[in-house]
């Protein structure tokens, strides 16, 4: 009996030692060397484990790369620190809220890049807002995070104003909102591909469902028909063949998927072989090498929209892309949000630089950094030139359309255009 208690004690002591080791470690990132004025940390919050990691890890790579290549800013050493918002295998708003509180408590962190999911963003923005803490997201596309529409409260229970108790905007993003991406794909289907009957499915997540709904609305507006509309629980669904057969019977000429690579976006494409020979359209969650792999021998005739300009179209960006590929050589290290996330990090670093100047070369306050980010004018990133409007959205965001072509098949740029504006 007594010995058993010793085991229990030993296990608890083991956890306790881990605990002290961890808290000790967390505090020990100090230093920064004698030659610099101090250290500034760029934080990120992405889902980097579990099923969402296929979206989160490539984005984190982009941020890490931006911070590592900058190295320092106006005499301050720059360090990257990544947080993971995955709990129990899925992105978790509670964990996101904890992460941002931890970031805020570290005076060296002047801003963060992320998060990946709109629900996590809703939990984080109010907390960051009270501390004037800058957030720049590469992937949140839900329009209700920044813009006030009549349906926002009914759809998401909140408005941008409610999320910002301070009244001053601290949340910026480079991705064009869902309001642009779905319609852009719909316009492309009707105007360029000249097709009118479409089957639409979504992963029933904030992003996927939102973009599929916007696509459906625009197609209908343009005189086309959505012959079949389904939402799937992609964690438990493996078989899309009933849906695809139904779509074929109802005369679908194209299929639109509202999902991401984490939610099997291009798996149905492979299953279309032998059932339905039609173009397959994806939003930016699918424009990556993973999608081509998943579509297997049916990867041709895929179209994708990306809510940011194509990094490869920008000649200045080529050197950056090459350097990134050298640092992260694996093909799956790059995702559709890698370069947008890298741009977010560079925008933040640039703003911190201006804030340091504004503060006479000293460590700026978070409010100064926030103001500097808001004042970002024509920042040239790998994916476009960014200026933020009062909501924190990019002014005249760019939408690019891609297609799979060539041998071996790869995403090829088709066209890009400004939307909204």
């Amino acid at each position, binding site marked *: *009996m007594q010995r058993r208690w010793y085991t229990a004690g030993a296990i*608890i002591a083991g*956890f306790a030692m881990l605990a002290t080791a961890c808290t000790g470690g*967390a505090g*020990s990132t100090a230093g920064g060397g004698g030659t610099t004025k101090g250290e500034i940390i760029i934080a990120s919050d992405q889902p980097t484990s579990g099923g969402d990691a296929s979206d989160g890890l490539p984005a984190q790579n982009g941020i890490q790369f931006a911070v590592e290549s900058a190295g320092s800013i106006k005499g301050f050493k720059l360090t990257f620190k990544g*947080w993971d918002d995955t709990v129990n295998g899925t992105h978790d708003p509670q964990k996101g809220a904890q992460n941002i509180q931890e970031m805020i*408590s570290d005076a060296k962190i002047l801003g963060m890049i992320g998060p990946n999911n709109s*629900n996590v963003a809703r939990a984080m923005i109010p907390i960051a807002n009270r501390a004037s803490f800058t957030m720049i997201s590469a992937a949140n596309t839900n329009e209700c995070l920044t813009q006030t529409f009549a349906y926002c409260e009914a759809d998401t*229970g909140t408005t941008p104003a409610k999320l910002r108790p301070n009244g001053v905007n601290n949340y910026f993003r480079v991705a064009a909102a869902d309001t642009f991406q779905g319609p852009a794909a719909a316009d492309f289907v009707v105007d360029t591909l000249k097709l009118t009957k479409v089957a639409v499915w979504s992963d029933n997540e904030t992003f996927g469902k939102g973009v599929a709904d916007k696509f459906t609305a625009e197609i209908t507006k343009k005189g086309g028909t959505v012959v079949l509309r389904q939402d799937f629980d992609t964690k438990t669904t493996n078989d899309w063949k009933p849906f695809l057969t139904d779509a074929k019977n109802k005369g679908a000429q194209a299929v639109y998927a509202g999902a991401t690579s984490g939610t099997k976006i291009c798996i149905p494409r492979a299953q279309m072989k032998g059932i339905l020979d039609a173009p397959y359209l994806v939003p930016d969650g699918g424009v990556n090498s993973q999608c081509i792999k998943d579509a297997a021998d049916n990867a041709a005739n895929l179209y994708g929209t990306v809510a940011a300009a194509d990094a490869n179209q920008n000649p200045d960006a080529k050197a950056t892309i090459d350097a990134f590929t050298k640092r992260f050589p694996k093909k799956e290290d790059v995702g559709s949000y890698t370069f947008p996330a890298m741009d977010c990090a560079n925008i933040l670093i640039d703003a911190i630089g201006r804030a340091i100047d504004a503060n006479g070369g000293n460590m700026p306050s978070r409010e100064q950094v926030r103001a500097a980010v808001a004042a970002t004018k024509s920042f040239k990133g790998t994916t476009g030139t960014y200026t933020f409007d009062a909501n924190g959205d990019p002014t005249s965001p760019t939408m690019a359309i891609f297609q799979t072509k060539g041998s071996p098949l790869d995403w090829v740029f088709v066209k890009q255009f400004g939307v909204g504006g």
Partner: protein
Amino acid sequence: MRGLLSRLGSILESDPRKNPNAVVYLVLAVATIAFPIGVQVATRGSGSFLISQAADAGVYILLAIGLNVVVGFAGLLDLGYAAFFAIGAYTYAFVASDHLEFTPIHQALHIPFWIALLVGMFAAAGAGAILGAPTLRLRGDYLAIVTLGFGEIVPRLFRNASTWTSGVNGISALDTPALPIWLNGPWSGDALAIVQNFKIIDPLAYYVIMAILVAISVLLVNNLRRSRMGRAWMAVREDEVAAAAMGVNTVGVKLLAFSIGAAFSGFAGTFYGAKLSLVSPENFGFTVSITILIMVVLGGMGNIPGVIVGALLIYYVIFNILPGLPQQASDFANSIGATSLNSPSGDWPGLAGEVQRLKYLIFGLILVLTMLLRPQGLLPSRQRAEELQKGVHDDTTIEDVNAETT
């Protein structure tokens, strides 16, 4: 007061080896008070995020206490407990936000947090009764499977019934808990003034609320366990047929175990919703149910302090150790001078990247090893420990239940 003092005295006098619970309670109580102070001292005043996280951990403590009633006391395996958590959280979202205005009801409700706690409790308890009623005939693992099905259905209902729950987007901007009246003063950094409708934002306040909620729950559960009902639960757990023969209303007893167990998750859900100001359907899945079950079993089924310790440890592992591990690993490599480990080359993604990929594995190994070393849990209930030593096939004595006191 004298009763309390004499109880405290008896705790101090009791032999820790015979009754470690008293010591554990004492340690937990002291730690609860010392934690915020210690954290602020250790982090030089910037530790409020840790206090906030500790308050979040309390949610899981409440859940574990509630599940312990079902699994530990009544011996009913519940694999869908997160469903009640979801019901509690969504209840708060419905009764304390503008949301209902956008549902077919068209009338927002703003019930104060303190009353909403009770509403959430009754909603979850009601759900427990509704689930329990038709499934009472089932025994053992078949009940577990029904609860599993229920646990799968409820979050999907919240996700799919978007007219009522705004679907995948969840409901956000829930009301912040508020005190009707509060005295501002130098301690909060303001001038001395009486504030009406004071909104609670400070993490420490949440921590205090949570500590009180946990303390109330522990008292309630302890009293329940010592009551007639508690003894009936244990009788049902040990031998249902014998219990029924002795006149125990097994049906009612099981139903109450379900309801009361669920009630605590109503507390937890309300607090969760109020603190996060957001509920979304993807965070109440099967993994959450399993996590809570792990907390209960690993801590020591049936023993409340054990369950609390288990909840704290697992919470700490899942929310702190695992997510922070890659950073820790690369910091550690830097501190011992092995910086080359951190730079990626070829297939090696750098130490942090590699550890990132190891998280699942490490969590799994922690579970397996702890269970192999302490199959009865870290702090098992005394009776269960004895059962284990005698072996499960030996006759267990029910009168032990009466003798068991804390």
